[in-house]
């Protein structure tokens, strides 16, 4: 929030409208939502209502993702892909599922996060219906993550579950959880099981230090670090936004946007 406010004084800002629209999402939402949630969600019942809404939408997002994978995209989604999104969403003729969210990256991260939350939540439920509901939402979430082909998202369940096992402070759970994590890691890093499955093959490249995508990212990081060394408070917020890109396509750093 403070960084966002102070960056209004960044001499590189040419257009204050873009600054304002980026400031909203970068700083304001975070502050407002945290304060409001802390004040308003103050009973267990309210918290569970929130979880139910989240779980229902998470299930819907996953189901839409599964439909995209098995049936295909509809006319509007195809139009969106044709406008340029196909560069990042059609890899080797295979669609990276994005459901009804903005892109596959967000779909993957969101579903991974929802999956971890709901699976952990289901462990703590005594009511069987509730337990299976959350477990169902969680498993669909993790499956959605694999469908999205977002490799960065796989660290979310790995680290999330590990932290949960550590916080549980139960030695048996911790040891069995650690063994499970090691098995998952070894499965991806050192074996070739299921290599003919597109999703598994793509996830596996996340563990490969010689992966071409990783090398490109590292090269980009090196280039940008030189570029940013003369700009101690950064380029400015909102440079890479769609609106920002229209107005500032001449800027060097915009080349490195993933959007």
């Amino acid at each position: 929030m403070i960084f966002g406010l102070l960056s209004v004084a960044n001499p590189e800002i040419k257009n204050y409208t873009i600054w304002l629209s980026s400031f909203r999402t970068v700083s304001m939402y975070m502050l407002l939502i945290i304060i409001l949630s802390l004040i308003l969600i103050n009973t267990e019942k309210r918290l569970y209502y929130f979880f139910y809404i989240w779980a229902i939408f998470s299930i819907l997002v996953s189901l839409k993702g599964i439909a995209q994978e098995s049936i295909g995209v509809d006319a509007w989604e195809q139009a969106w892909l044709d406008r340029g999104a196909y560069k990042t969403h059609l890899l080797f003729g295979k669609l990276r599922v994005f459901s009804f969210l903005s892109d596959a990256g967000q779909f993957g991260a969101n579903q991974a996060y929802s999956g971890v939350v709901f699976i952990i939540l289901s462990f703590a439920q005594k009511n069987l219906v509730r337990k299976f509901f959350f477990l169902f939402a969680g498993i669909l979430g993790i499956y959605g993550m694999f469908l999205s082909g977002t490799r960065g998202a796989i660290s979310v369940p790995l680290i999330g579950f590990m932290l949960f096992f550590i916080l549980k402070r139960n030695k048996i759970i911790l040891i069995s959880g650690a063994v499970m994590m090691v098995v998952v890691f070894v499965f991806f890093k050192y074996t070739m099981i299921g290599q003919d499955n597109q999703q598994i093959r793509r996830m596996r490249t996340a563990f490969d230090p010689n992966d071409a995508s990783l090398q490109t990212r590292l090269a980009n990081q090196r280039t940008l670090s030189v570029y940013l060394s003369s700009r101690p408070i950064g380029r400015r917020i909102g440079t890479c936004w769609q609106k920002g890109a229209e107005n500032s396509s001449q800027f060097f750093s915009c080349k490195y946007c993933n959007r």
Partner: protein
Amino acid sequence: MLSSNNPFESNSGSLRLGSPRFYIPLLISCFIAAWLVSTKGLAAGIALIVLPFIIVYLTFLFQNPVLGIYTVGILGFVILGTTRYVEVPMIGISIDSILVLSFLAFFFKNFYEKGTGDRPVKMLLCWH
């Protein structure tokens, strides 16, 4: 004199519509709606249809500010995908406005009460 105390002497509910006092505003609003639809087109018509729902929602929101958080959660899922199907102008502002309205609702609801004390402030400090 007596009639004001006797419930059978005064009209209530839909019976009130029998009086021209209630007909005139109804007719005026009909004319305004018709004029808006004819001059501004379909968008104005849709806005007029949606308007009562927005008013009902806002009433609930001001009675129960926690609705704002739930709505933002739902909008977060829905908004980005919606823009792929229909062009809704200023749709991004809806999240901002609901957050601000929730704040206002909370503020007005707790205006005359002791409120939540300094618990949220302490929690916020812990969070950051």
